[in-house]
């Protein structure tokens, strides 16, 4: 037994940024207290970690920063339950715990390498895709053209607005940010993610797609992709379920024979189709 997988690393909240106009989504920048933990932390885009708030509990949250961003780890958290509510209330400088990284992540150095990449996201599901996009941009030569479709209800509900501005116009990056309905001051795309996807989706030739968002968005995004020849084994999805251990033991997150925490959270659509719909 080399280490106890249940012990979180002590860390501090270094910075908090409110992401959305409703104030319900914040991004937390977290730094490790122990140099040893910082130095040994290695994650892949698409992985998650358990965040601990003393006395409240632990929650699984996707890692929003890329491993190429060193010295901190980012988590973008929607306020929903006991622990996320506590997290939203605590101040900068507070000590929390972080356990991980957990799960498999996107195959950025496997099946995605050398390919054109299509990233599709809706709402606040862009978090691990932010990690992925920054990773891809940091290793630009390893990938072909990158197409992003990202939608939210209103301009104020979009995540990482400043970063999207900075990514605008980068070579080989096709950004398509859309909102559901016309809004004052918005000059960008208007329309649901599936509609925009139909308009801009690249050829499936030598390509991989990563799709994260509400199930209804994923459902309607698939037909336009299938129409132009995308196959289920080229499409990567990230599942979510209630989790406790994150180690494939406690039994909470199983979808049939697989554990979202250990065998996932990233699965190809081909894999997901062979599973019961228990996520």
């Amino acid at each position, binding site marked *: *037994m080399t280490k*106890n*997988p*249940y*012990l*979180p690393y*002590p860390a501090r909240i270094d910075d908090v940024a409110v992401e959305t106009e409703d104030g319900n989504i914040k991004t937390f920048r977290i730094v490790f207290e122990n140099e040893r933990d910082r130095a040994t932390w290695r994650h892949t885009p698409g992985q998650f970690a358990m965040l*601990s708030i*003393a*006395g*409240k*509990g*632990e*929650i699984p949250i996707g890692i929003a920063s890329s491993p190429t961003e060193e010295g901190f780890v980012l988590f973008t958290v929607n306020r*929903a*339950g006991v622990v*996320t509510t506590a997290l939203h209330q605590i101040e900068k400088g507070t*000590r*929390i*715990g972080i356990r991980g990284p957990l799960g498999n992540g996107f195959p950025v150095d496997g099946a995605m390498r050398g390919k054109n990449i299509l990233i599709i996201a809706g709402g606040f599901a862009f978090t691990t895709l932010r990690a992925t996009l920054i990773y891809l941009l940091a290793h630009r030569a390893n990938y072909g053209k990158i197409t992003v479709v990202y939608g939210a209800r209103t301009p104020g509900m979009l995540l990482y607005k400043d970063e999207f501005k900075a990514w605008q116009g980068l070579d080989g990056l096709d950004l398509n940010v859309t909102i559901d309905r016309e809004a004052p001051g918005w000059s960008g795309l208007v329309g649901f993610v599936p509609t925009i996807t139909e308009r801009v989706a690249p050829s499936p030739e030598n390509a991989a797609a990563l799709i994260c968002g509400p199930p209804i968005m994923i459902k309607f995004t698939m037909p336009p992709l299938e129409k132009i020849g995308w196959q289920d084994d080229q499409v990567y999805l990230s599942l*979510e*379920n*209630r989790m*406790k*251990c994150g*180690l*494939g*033991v*406690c*039994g*909470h997150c*199983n*979808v*049939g*024979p697989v554990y979202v925490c250990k065998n996932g959270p990233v699965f190809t659509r081909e894999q997901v189709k*062979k599973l*019961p*719909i*228990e*996520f």
Partner: protein
Amino acid sequence: MNILRLDINGLLDCLSSWAGGQELYGPVKDGWRRISRDGLEAVVSIPPGAPKAPIKTFFLAQPETLFTFSARHGDDDAWIPTPPKEAPNRRVLFGVRPCDARSIALNSMPYRDDPYYQARMDKTAVVGLSCNETCSTCFCKSVGGSPYGTEGLDILLTKADGGFIAEVLTSKGEGLLEKGTGTPAGDGDMARLKALRDAAQAGTSDTQALSASFKAKNLMQLYNARLWQGLSEPCLNCGACTFLCPTCYCFDIQDEVVRQAGRRIRYWDSCMFPLFTLHASGHNPRGEKIKRVRNRFMHKLKYFTERFGALSCVGCGRCIRECPVNIDIREVIRDLLSVE
């Protein structure tokens, strides 16, 4: 492997030495009780079948403290997790039925890398008692076990000819016996053991056959089988089956703070409960009872079997005995095997 013959006094001497030198536990009535030196008589006559309380209680503590922390904001070490310093005490579990012993071996697979489970395993010696008699709810033989099975045990005792034949199965088992305990078993004892084992296996199918059958079945065909609707209708989702089951090992983790002293604990949970899978958003992937009942059986018979090669059921019959609405896993196995 060393095989000895023990008479009743020899066994009482062993029990006395275990009760004195470490902690001795045995089945008394429905539960597992600490046995003291002057209470040894309580465990030398054990009724047939497994006691109501499952053996997992010794390995999955209720609760297990994962770590402690100070919840006092001013403390420098507030929130820093401190793993428990005390190691579990050495103990002997006596009178463990082969079905329960097998559950220890099966649970060790998902808990292979779990430091808490393994620490308890390290400190525990398991002395089994084979089943010359079985109950109407026992079905170990049909799920790959045997009333004389040795899996998960350090020593197996078999009642024979007014005494016991002791099979010493591991070095931990060797360590339990003082020099000069018993006498080497004779050819007659060996023949007697073999005859008992053969008789128990007579008429039963190949022990690997059931897990092979379940592995060969198509997962989604089993999942979509019609039987789940009728099976789940009477279920109360009380969770008795999962709490009593020796191979149900799911857990929850919660934080507790009492007077600013915090601890994170892990304790048994049940997939029968709607909260088990409830998301913070309100979405529940197993919100309907049929899905929860199906998950329990599918995990035991199909998912675990695919992952680890054996069914997560040892045939102890506790769930059959205690289910308030008489759901019988033997019937579920039979019906699932006929799903085409």
